[in-house]
């Protein structure tokens, strides 16, 4: 008995894909929209507070907003709430900066048992690492292009 000879399924991956339980893309998008929207609205409230009540400068406003949201994301992760939100919201809670905070903290938290240096210290960068590598590198590349264009008098 050899299943390969007996079975005449050309492309198993395509066959599996056809039979697979589908994720409900539409309802997932609705949930992502609402939760993502809400997190951004919260961000806007923090911005407005920083801008009008604390009267911070523009740069300080963005810094303030990021710090608060990152703190909230980290705290909710520690309390074990963020993954429950994430299960419901999908990308709605992954894409905002709180989700970045969640990815960073969740991997560090998990490796606490391996100690504070090679456990927490190293694993903090499991997700933060790639994001910073690609974010900073791409910003340097566009910076270089901008610099060259300026030299040529084109920007």
């Amino acid at each position, binding site marked *: 008995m050899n*299943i390969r000879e007996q079975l005449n399924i050309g492309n198993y991956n395509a066959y599996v894909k056809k039979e*697979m*339980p589908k994720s409900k893309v539409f309802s997932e998008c609705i949930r992502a929209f609402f939760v993502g929207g809400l997190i951004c609205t919260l961000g806007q409230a923090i911005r407005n507070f920083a801008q009008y009540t604390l009267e911070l400068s523009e740069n300080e406003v963005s810094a303030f907003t990021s710090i608060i949201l990152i703190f909230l994301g980290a705290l909710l992760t520690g309390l074990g709430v963020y993954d429950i939100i994430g299960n419901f919201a999908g990308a709605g809670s992954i894409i905002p900066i709180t989700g970045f905070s969640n990815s960073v903290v*969740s991997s560090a938290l*998990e490796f606490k*048992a391996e100690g504070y240096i090679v456990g927490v210290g190293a694993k903090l960068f499991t997700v933060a690492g790639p994001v910073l590598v690609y974010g900073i590198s791409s910003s340097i590349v566009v910076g270089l292009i901008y610099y060259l264009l300026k030299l040529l008098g084109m920007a």
Partner: protein
Amino acid sequence: MGGKILPEGTMILENPVYIRGKGSAVGQEEAKGPLSDYFDIKADNAKWGEKSFEFAEKKFFMSACKKAVEDAGLSLNDIDLLLGGDLLNQIITASYSARDLGLPFLGLYGACSGMAQALATGSMLIDGGFGNNILCAASSHYATAERQFRSPLELGTPKPPTGQDTVTGAGATVISSEKGNNKVVIRALTIGRCVDFGITDANNMGAAMAPSAVQSILTHLQNRGKNPLDYDAVFTGDLGMFGSKLMIDLAQKCGVDLSEVHHDCGSMIYEGMKSKRCGASGCGCCAVVLNGYILRQLEQGNYRRILFTATGAMMSTTSVQQGESIPGIAHVIEMERV
């Protein structure tokens, strides 16, 4: 020695191998499921008073082993050999348990097929006269497996619809050459091959393993000259709901109808629990269902003859990250009430 091994990996045991004792230990989620009453030991939480999830998994492994030895009416001194495995890197759960139990030990890795792999190896050793009482065990733990193979517990990413949850728990069986009062016997088994149909999605292990299950079960039936209805039940390890559906379909395409007799341990253990999507996976899954539910049903006479097929997805995080496809494996154990 002629006739012991048939073509394509089916072994016919000359000397009956009896099931002498069984033990199962599960976590709290499994204890909420429909099979709860059948499990021997239930932990009150995933850490079970230990300092890490890995230690907790060892406690599950040890508890199941001790329970099985006790159930067999033996002491650890009567056990000739421990065969076991788990899912963690370098099978640390089994190895550290072996250290603490102080038994001669062969560590086995067969991914989620661990329980059947251990039973198969143990049965052959007993048949060959290399032991009288052999302890076979397998374990898995949701938290340890999740972080090794998937994502951190607190990561806010929804799981895909084909995802399966690793069972927290361990099962152990004492197999023996002596008849005694034992009611269940292993007569034949089929060692599976690694079958790879090119699935690369680590969240779709049921699909990766289904072809191997069909391969092994159909090989076994063919070599034994039986058809599915000769068995009261054909259990698969942890194909999950979607994998089970695929397996039935694939078997059908090969001209064998398994739908009447097939049950999947991964679907059974969490049946009716909404949050569990596609069912369960992990070495512990079929290990606890076998030692909790199936063996009891056999002993009580509700089943006369069954096939127990544990399936495994033989991948690692490295192979998945390198884009390699996932081979599946399945070993079949034929058990009978005497």
